[in-house]
């Protein structure tokens, strides 16, 4: 993509920023207990009646703890609680401990809107970490815009949105799709693609971007099939037969939830072993979390395109994984979205301290340009479109349920929620 002129942070600058970030990190580590609340009187840091006292600040956590989405959202809640605990151990934000009010969206979109309103109007929370599906985000969006709340949204999603009241800590679609397609084309010589997805907005928008990229920007490549199955579909034998006949080089799969498990089990059972790479399986919807349900042996050899894998070997991540396991148990796995959720509280802390205020308008202004060198995925930076600059990586699934990172982009990839030429 870099040779197509899609802007990237230049290597030199990002390296400088890395160094600066590294220095800042050592700085905070040796600084005794962060900033003092006494230096930031409550009347000055909170002029809009938020739940901020002399020694606490309240934020909201809004995810599904019950219902179908609990499978996915549990990890995000765990990551957010870990980040809050770590920030509190360092002295909190502007010398104030973070307290949280947790609400359950119950996998039901109107409930999300109702709970969001409760958090903003009754609890007066200074920010909210929450939502997972696009549907739930769309449901709470008008509430956040009406009451001027501030939401940190962790999931990779289809893009086509940029709200002044949301920071998107996951990737928008182009950040997740393009680098991976270019990689299979260059490294594996893939020319033909079969696009497959669950039938809702994220897979459809993502495949639309994938198709445009394959047809317009990749020489001699084509899409030989594109297909959607209803959410929760569990029988994939027909489409597997079709794939066998079309003989694509790559199956590009964006199947989600329980369907995912069924798809990979049936693929293996039908004699298509992802490890043989004939065809190669590339997905953007299977994190380490999902592999637990699919079973490592059924998906080993498939590739996933994400920005974070638990197996990343940088120091930030080693520490993050250790802390996460200490808090939530040795058996836990950490997927891409869980890491993105972990960034939320830290980005908020950085913005509040830069602004010297909890007021949403000031935090919003301060948030753009915030750098987080301590992120487990490595250095990230907030773009003025409220998404993050981050690297894209390709991992190869292993039988033990982890990914082995086989590729990462040299530079940070610019977030582009409204990609031109892909609409």
């Amino acid at each position, binding site marked *: 993509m870099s040779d197509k002129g899609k802007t990237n942070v230049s290597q030199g600058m990002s390296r400088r920023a890395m160094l600066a970030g590294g220095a800042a990190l050592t700085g905070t580590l040796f600084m005794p207990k962060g900033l003092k609340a006494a230096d930031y009187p409550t009347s000055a840091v909170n002029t809009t009646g938020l739940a901020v006292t002399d020694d606490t600040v309240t934020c909201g956590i809004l995810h599904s703890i019950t219902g179908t989405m609990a499978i996915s959202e549990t990890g995000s809640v765990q990551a957010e609680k870990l980040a809050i605990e770590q920030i509190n151990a360092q002295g909190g934000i502007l010398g104030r401990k973070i307290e949280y009010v947790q609400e359950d969206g119950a996998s039901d979109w109107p409930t999300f809107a109702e709970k969001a309103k409760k958090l903003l109007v009754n609890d007066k929370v200074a920010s909210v970490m929450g939502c997972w599906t696009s549907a739930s985000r769309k449901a709470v969006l008008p509430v956040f815009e009406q009451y001027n709340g501030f939401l940190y949204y962790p999931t990779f999603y289809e893009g086509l949105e940029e709200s002044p009241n949301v920071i998107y800590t996951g990737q928008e679609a182009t950040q997740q799709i393009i680098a991976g397609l270019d990689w299979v084309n260059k490294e594996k010589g893939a020319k033909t693609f079969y696009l497959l997805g669950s039938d809702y907005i994220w897979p459809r928008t993502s495949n639309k971007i994938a198709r445009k990229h394959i047809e317009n920007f990749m020489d001699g490549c084509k899409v030989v099939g594109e297909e959607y199955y209803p959410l929760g579909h*569990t029988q994939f034998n027909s489409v597997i037969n079709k794939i066998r006949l079309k003989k694509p080089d790559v199956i590009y799969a964006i199947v989600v939830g329980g*369907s995912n498990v069924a798809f990979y089990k049936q693929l293996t059972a039908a004699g298509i072993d992802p490890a043989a790479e004939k065809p190669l399986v590339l997905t953007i919807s299977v994190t380490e979390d999902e592999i637990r349900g699919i079973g490592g042996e059924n998906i080993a050899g498939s590739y996933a395109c994400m920005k974070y894998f638990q197996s990343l070997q940088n120091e930030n991540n080693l520490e993050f994984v250790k802390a996460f396991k200490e808090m939530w148990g040795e058996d836990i796995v950490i997927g891409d979205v869980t890491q993105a959720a972990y960034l939320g509280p830290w980005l908020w802390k950085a913005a509040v301290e830069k602004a010297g205020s909890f007021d949403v308008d000031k935090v919003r202004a301060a948030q753009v340009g915030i750098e987080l060198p301590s992120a487990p995925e490595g250095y990230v930076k907030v773009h003025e479109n409220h998404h993050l600059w981050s690297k894209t990586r390709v991992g190869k699934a292993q039988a033990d349920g982890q990914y082995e990172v086989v590729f990462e982009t040299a530079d940070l990839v610019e977030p582009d929620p409204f990609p031109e030429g892909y609409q």
Partner: protein
Amino acid sequence: MFADYSTAELGAIFAMQGFAGLILFSVFVLMALGLAIIFGQMGVINMAHGEFMILGAYVTYIVSNIFSAYMPGLFGAYFFVAMFLAFIASGALGLLVEWAMIRHLYKRPLDTLLATWGLSLILQQIYRSVFGAREVGVSIPDWMMGSLPLTDLIEIPINGIFVMVLAVSISLAVYIMMFRSTWGRQVRAINQNRVMAGAVGINTEWTDRLTFGIGCGVAGVAGSAFTMIGSTGPTAGQLYIVDTFLVVVFGGAASLLGTIASAFSISQAQSIMEFFLSGSMAKVITLLVVVGILMIRPQGLFALKLRK
């Protein structure tokens, strides 16, 4: 439509799609048999059917863990033990539920819908509390995964064959129990005329309880088998419930033969259309056709003549 394919490929298409249809048929039969017994013979609308299936899946998960920890040598055979225990577990839960809840609602069949729906929510939350919200991975013995290559193009999944054999055996077992055993005769007698059946000395209460238990047990076996092809999580049962009711209602609620015939026609239609249309369109058209036929024939494909 066929222009893109050579003759050999066309042959392979029909062979493989035919087989995919048969696998789907077996899956439908397994899903629907338990419900056909409960809904068809007793008139109880069991919305918790999917959760009874998932109980079977979780039993399989536990048994597989026990075998891999203590008897790794016998791991290849654990599945049969798991299916048997799944039957016992789901059946026992069925007996308990019938005693605690269903028997009070026989005179109000529509209320069973609400009550069992509530039960399904309770069971889901219990699974979530016990096993965690995430899906669990059930490891399947190696011999059950993989496929038999017949030609270059045609490969038959082994777990598909396993599901088919299982569906046939369970259908036979249910048939024998229903039409060749004392219990089956009593069930049918109660179905035809409850008061009269009681008057000639049939213990209707116990027969009802046993029927419900067996229906749930069969659901448990189905759930156990589905760990091979689908996911095992607290809400996975919801994935099956719509298709299950569709098959049973379309077949004619009181007829086991109707259930099998409807499973066959729906699965073949869906599998063929999935090949030529997209997955979502195939589902839409299947549902439209079923709704259309049910409007003309509300009693379903096969209906028993009953004295009401």
